[in-house]
C-alpha cells in the first residue's frame, strides 16, 4: 500500500490527517457509495421542490437560496451518516483509533473528506439547478458561501455523526442531533446566498458572512476540543 501512495510532506500531524483524507477518497473512488447516494438524493429533493412550491419565475428568485441549502443540508446528513457507518460496521474505526496518531488528526481527516464530498455534490447540483430552473448560480460570492457554510456543517456534523453511529438509533439520530445546533450556519448561509443571488449591497451581506465565519471558527474549535472524548473507549 505504501508504495502506491506518495508520502505527503509536512509534520506528522498533517501527514496522518492527509492519510485519513486519502483513505476516504480512495475508498469512495472504488465504491462510489456515498457520492452517488448523496447526488441522487439531492436531485430528487430539487425535483420535489419543483412540485411542492410551484416554482414560477418570481418564486424561483425568492426561493433558490433556501432550496439550495435545504438540499445540501439533507444530502449532507446522508453523506455524514454513511461515511461514519462504513467505519463502524467494518471495524475500521477501531483500526483508525489504534493507529499511533493524534486523534484530532483523524477528526480533521474525516472532516476534510466529508467537506470534499459535500462540495462535490454542490459542484454537480449547481449547474443542474441552473439548467433546470434557468437561473445563473455561478456567482463567486455564492461559491464562497457554499465553501464556508459546508465547512461549519461538516465540522459539527462529523463530531455528531461519530456519536450517532455508536448509539442504538444510528441513522435516525444524526439529523435530530445536528439540525437544532447547526441553525446559525444554515441561516447565515441562506441569507448570504440570497443576498449574492439578488445582487444586494455588500453592507447587507456583510453581517451574515461575519456570523458565518464566526460560527465556523467556534464550531470547529469546539468539535476539535471534544472529539477525543467521543472516540475514547
Amino acid at each position: 500500500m505504501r508504495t502506491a501512495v506518495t508520502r505527503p510532506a509536512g509534520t506528522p500531524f498533517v501527514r496522518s490527517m492527509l492519510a485519513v483524507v486519502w483513505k476516504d477518497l480512495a475508498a469512495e473512488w472504488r465504491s462510489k457509495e456515498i457520492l452517488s447516494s448523496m447526488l441522487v438524493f439531492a436531485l430528487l429533493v430539487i425535483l420535489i421542490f419543483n412540485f411542492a412550491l410551484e416554482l414560477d419565475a418570481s418564486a424561483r428568485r425568492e426561493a433558490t437560496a433556501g432550496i439550495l441549502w435545504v438540499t445540501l443540508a439533507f444530502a449532507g446528513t446522508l453523506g455524514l451518516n454513511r461515511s461514519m457507518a462504513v467505519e463502524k460496521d467494518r471495524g475500521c474505526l477501531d483500526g483508525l483509533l489504534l493507529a499511533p496518531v493524534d486523534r484530532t488528526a483523524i477528526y480533521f481527516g474525516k472532516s476534510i473528506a466529508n467537506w470534499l464530498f459535500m462540495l462535490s455534490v454542490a459542484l454537480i447540483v449547481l449547474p443542474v439547478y441552473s439548467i433546470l430552473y434557468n437561473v445563473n448560480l455561478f456567482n463567486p460570492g455564492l461559491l464562497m458561501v457554499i465553501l464556508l457554510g459546508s465547512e461549519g456543517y461538516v465540522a459539527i456534523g462529523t463530531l455528531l455523526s461519530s456519536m450517532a453511529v455508536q448509539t442504538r438509533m444510528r441513522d435516525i439520530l444524526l439529523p435530530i442531533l445536528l439540525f437544532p445546533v447547526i441553525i446559525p450556519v444554515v441561516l447565515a448561509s441562506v441569507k448570504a446566498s440570497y443576498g449574492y443571488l439578488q445582487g444586494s449591497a455588500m453592507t447587507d451581506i456583510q453581517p451574515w458572512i461575519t456570523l458565518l465565519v464566526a460560527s465556523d471558527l467556534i464550531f470547529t474549535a469546539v468539535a476539535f476540543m471534544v472529539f477525543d472524548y467521543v472516540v475514547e473507549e
Partner: protein
Amino acid sequence: MASKPRLLTVLDIVTALLMAAAIYMVFIFAPMERVMGAVQKVFYFHVAAGWAGMLGFFVAFVAGIVYLITKQSRWDRVELAGVEIGLVFMFICIVTGSIWARPIWNTWWTWDPRLTTATIMELAYAAYMMLRSGIEDPERRARFGAVYSIVAFISVPLTFFSIRIFRTIHPVVIGSNDPTAQGTFNMTPAMGQTFAFSLIAFSFLFAALLWHRIRLGKLQEDVERLKLQLQS
C-alpha cells in the same frame, strides 16, 4: 440508603413559602397594568421561568465540562438534572409567553428571535434526551451527553444572534427600550419588587428541584446496583 438530608427539607419548606408569597404578590400586591390589564401578570412568572430554564441549561453545560475532566458519575447526574429541569421551565416560559402574546400581539406565535431561539433550544435538549435514551452503556451515555450539552449550549447564543439580525418585536422591560417593540410597559416600584421576588422564588424552586433530581439519580443508581447484586 441515605435518608433525606435535613437541609433539603428546610429548602423545601422555604421554597414552598416563597412560592406562596410570590403568587400572593403577583395577584394581590402588584398593581394592575393600565393598558394590558390582568394578562400582564403572566410577565412575572414568564421571565422567572425563562431564567430558571437558562440556569438549568447552564448548569448542564458546566457539569458537562466538569464531567469530561473528572469522569465522576455524579457530574453526569447534575447534568441530566439540569437539562430535565431546564426543559420543563423553558416549556413553561414558551407557553406563558404565548398566552400573553394572544391578546397583546394578536397572535399565539411569531418568529421573533427570542421565541425562535427558545424553541430551538427546547428541541436541542429534547435531542439530548433522545441521545441518552439510545445508549445503554452508562459510561458512554455520560460522555456523549456531556459532549452534546456543551455543543448545544454553545450554539444557543449563535442562534440568537443569527435571528437577531432581523428586527425583533419582543419587549425589553429591563434595560434599554427598543421603540419598535410591541407590548412594553414601565414598571412601578411595586411591580419591580414583585418581579425581583418572583425571580428569587424561582431560583429557590430551581435549586430545590435540582437537588431532588440529583438525589433521585443517585437512588436510581443504587437500586440498579442492588438489583444486579440480587441477580448474581
